[in-house]
């Protein structure tokens, strides 16, 4: 079967690899640069690599040249632009949400609106603003603790949180927030849509549940957790994720089976709600980026209409014949499929050049080298991200260059990942977080703390009940 993969990062590398394990598959790819990991797979399966911008027009062009049996779309942006619809128009099955369905990720305001309309648990109070002035005014007047985000998906950029517990500081925090509203608003500019969303702020450990949906059947995958702060020990600016963990089993050590089930229920109801609104069946993956909070227990922070990156690198290698599940999802044959998960947990470290995420220019254009056989010899694997094969060199593109994956208990994996790092060399300093997977105990304590609150709320029937008040803003 000819499979055309669209996208250029570590997530697409992981997807491509899972599909290449079925020996009859030929992997073709369309990326904006040559990803060395995808290239290796394309070459070994006798496919072809296409370079170009990932636009519907370009995809149409490549489809006509490859005539694939299936399309796999990795990143969110092509989904927002209707790339999976291009496949389906030609009668080719595609793994990837339609343009309309991908709106669950693209518009955070729509996602919240949907949750309230269909009374899906785990929803938060929100306000949407079309002008920066209104948003800034609301923020500087308001009394509660707030999360301020671009109203739509902006690659995780621009999220600010302020907590109002420390009232004596709130003026300064609010001022900084109001100042950065301009920046936050600039990340999402869509004609006729709100620019900024302000939500009540919640606290607790985060985790992600990915769910496959073929339009009729849905199948939840093992949980994963990603780590957003750029630097060691969870300090530093927000990134797309500097690493992730998944497992053991279907859970994470700090999330219990009931919470998993409730989370699945939330995502399931979301899929039905989306399908009802758009009139199109949901085909591909949908993920709830969750937080376990005192307010609700499982609470939705946002949705993904695709695999999270680096969560994909933690989840996919743990699933047997994942490529087969991708095919079944795209073709509507998920019903009756077996999900076989490696019991061992996985640990993923992202490696990025110094400069990421605040100075992408500084982080770009550096050479990096890796002794791949040596890394694989010690039982780790590498997915290539923001790094391009230029001639015989690997050159950084400004974001997370590599994702290293290891299965096994966290301590042992950490040792092996540290060893792997010694097989990687670069003319720029490399940033990676060795604390990923070693703060499980702290997460467990955090989870236990919010569990006290939400179980008590549950018994009193006050799950999700909250409000804020300010002299100027009134009750909200």
């Amino acid at each position, binding site marked *: 079967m000819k499979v055309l993969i669209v996208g250029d990062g570590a997530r697409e590398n992981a997807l491509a690899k899972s599909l290449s394990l079925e020996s009859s598959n030929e992997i073709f790819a369309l990326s904006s640069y040559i990803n060395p990991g995808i290239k290796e797979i394309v070459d070994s399966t006798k496919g072809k690599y296409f370079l170009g911008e990932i636009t519907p027009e370009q995809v149409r062009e490549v489809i006509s040249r490859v005539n694939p049996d299936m399309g796999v779309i990795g990143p969110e942006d092509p989904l927002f632009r209707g790339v999976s619809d291009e496949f389906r128009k030609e009668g080719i099955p595609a793994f990837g949400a339609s343009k309309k369905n991908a709106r669950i990720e693209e518009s955070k305001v729509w996602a919240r609106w949907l949750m309230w309309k269909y009374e899906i648990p785990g929803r938060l109070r929100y306000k949407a603003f079309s002008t920066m002035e209104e948003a800034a005014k609301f923020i500087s007047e308001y009394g509660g603790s707030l999360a301020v985000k671009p109203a739509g998906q902006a690659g995780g950029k621009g999220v600010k949180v302020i*907590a109002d517990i*420390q009232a004596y*500081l709130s003026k300064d925090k609010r*001022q*900084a927030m109001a100042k950065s509203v301009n920046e936050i608003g600039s990340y999402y500019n869509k004609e006729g849509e709100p620019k900024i969303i302000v939500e009540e702020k919640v606290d607790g450990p985060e985790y992600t549940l990915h769910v496959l949906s073929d339009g009729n059947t849905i199948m939840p995958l093992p949980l994963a957790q990603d780590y957003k702060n750029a630097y060691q*020990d969870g*300090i*530093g600016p927000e990134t797309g994720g500097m690493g992730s963990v998944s497992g053991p089993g279907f859970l994470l050590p700090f999330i219990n089976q009931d919470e998993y089930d409730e989370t699945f229920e939330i995502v399931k109801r979301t899929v039905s709600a989306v399908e009802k609104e758009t009139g199109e069946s949901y085909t591909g993956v949908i993920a709830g980026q969750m937080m376990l909070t005192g307010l609700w227990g499982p609470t939705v922070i946002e949705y993904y209409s695709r695999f999270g990156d680096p969560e994909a690198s933690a989840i996919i290698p743990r699933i047997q014949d994942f490529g087969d599940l991708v095919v079944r999802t795209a073709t509507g044959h998920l019903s009756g499929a077996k999900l076989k998960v490696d019991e061992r947990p996985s640990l993923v470290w992202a490696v990025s050049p110094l400069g990421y995420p*605040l100075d992408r220019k500084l982080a770009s254009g550096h050479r990096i080298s890796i002794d791949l056989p040596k890394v694989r010899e010690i039982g780790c694997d590498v997915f290539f991200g923001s790094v391009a094969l230029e001639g015989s060199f690997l050159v950084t593109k400004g974001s997370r260059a590599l994702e290293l994956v290891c299965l096994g208990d966290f301590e042992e994996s950490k040792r092996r990942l540290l060893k792997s790092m010694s097989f990687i060399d670069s003319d720029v300093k490399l940033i990676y977080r060795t604390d990923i997977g070693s703060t499980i105990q702290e997460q467990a304590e955090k989870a236990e703390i919010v569990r006290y609150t939400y179980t008590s709320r549950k018994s009193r029937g006050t799950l999700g009940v909250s409000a804020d008040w300010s002299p100027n803003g009134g009750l909200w």
Partner: protein
Amino acid sequence: MAGLIGILAFDKIWNINKFLYYGLIGVQHRGYSKSGVSLLSEEGLIRTTRASVAPEDLEFGELEGWAGIGYAGTLNYPVQGKGISMAVDGVLKDQEKFIEELEKDPIEAVKRAKPTFTFVAITRDGKIIAYRDYLGLKPLSIGGFGFDMAIVSSEMTSMNVIGGELRREVEPGEMVIIDRLNVESVKLFPPEKNYCSIEYIYQARIDSFVDEREIYSLRLRIGERLAEEYPIEADSVVGVPDTAVPFALGYSKKTGIPMDLGFTRTGSPIRTMLASDDFTKVVGIQLKLNPIKPAFFNKRVVLIDDSMVTGTTLKNTVFSLRRLGAKEVHILIGSPKLTSKCPYGVAVPEEKELIAANLPDDEIAKVIGADSIHWLSLEGLYSAIGHRSLCMGCMTGKYPTR
């Protein structure tokens, strides 16, 4: 004794001066007779202000910036070199030379000096450099404020006060270099853990996590140990505020003797042991401790304090308690006897000023006017803390560096 703090915002839109101000107040229990801050402006200028006041009263004036350091203690910090400013917890003798070397090459400077002090510094090119002494005598922690700031501080109390979160303690001998693009850890010396016993007994705040321990729980254990070592027949247990209150609580829990709140305060808290002149000490204690009559009247009292230096404070207190009708006053001290000076900058006075170094117990009881007086044993302290990687120099005269 000093409280140190350093804050760096990853986005220069932040003006962190309020964060620095409140963060510094969060460590002012470590020393408050002098304070100061240095802030780095967007243009790359370091400006410093210092005054002989507590952090609460420090005027920032026009000082603004996106990164900065702060000091609360008994010395004149921060001191500024050309493109660097630093503040020290501990004893740094040749300041000028060290700062000059630090500015040139921080790692080399520390390697060469092998300091027993802990410091934070800020450089003009936007780095916060923090080093914890290889003996772990002084505490130092690192934390964050969301996606916005990195914070280093003597104690996590300053992170909590501004809404940040402790990530971990900096290891003894470790240097942390923070800038907008990275947080880097350099292990310069292998840790030779000699955690300061005084941190555990009274320096650190009770809501703090310092030197691998929750301070509140540890202090309850000290009280429990005192109960095991000195079970006294009494009607009431009272702890001298603030530090000795958890000791009294532990003692009360263990013995079943009810605890009373024996004192309230006039004015703001002043730490008698840190007060610089005798007048302040005498006035200080009267301001500090106003005994509450019903807590003592017609009662046999166990009075617990954290330490004893000259005994002045306790003598006055015991005198007041008798006047209010205490039938017996038994004194327990939540630390072993302090007998030697601290070479690392903890304010333990000279031997000649230390009553415990000069008089036998029965004489001390006579001076204080108490029915009995006992100190926590060294073994008791070890067991309450739960490890022996300690500097107990002020109690034993044995120091890790000599």
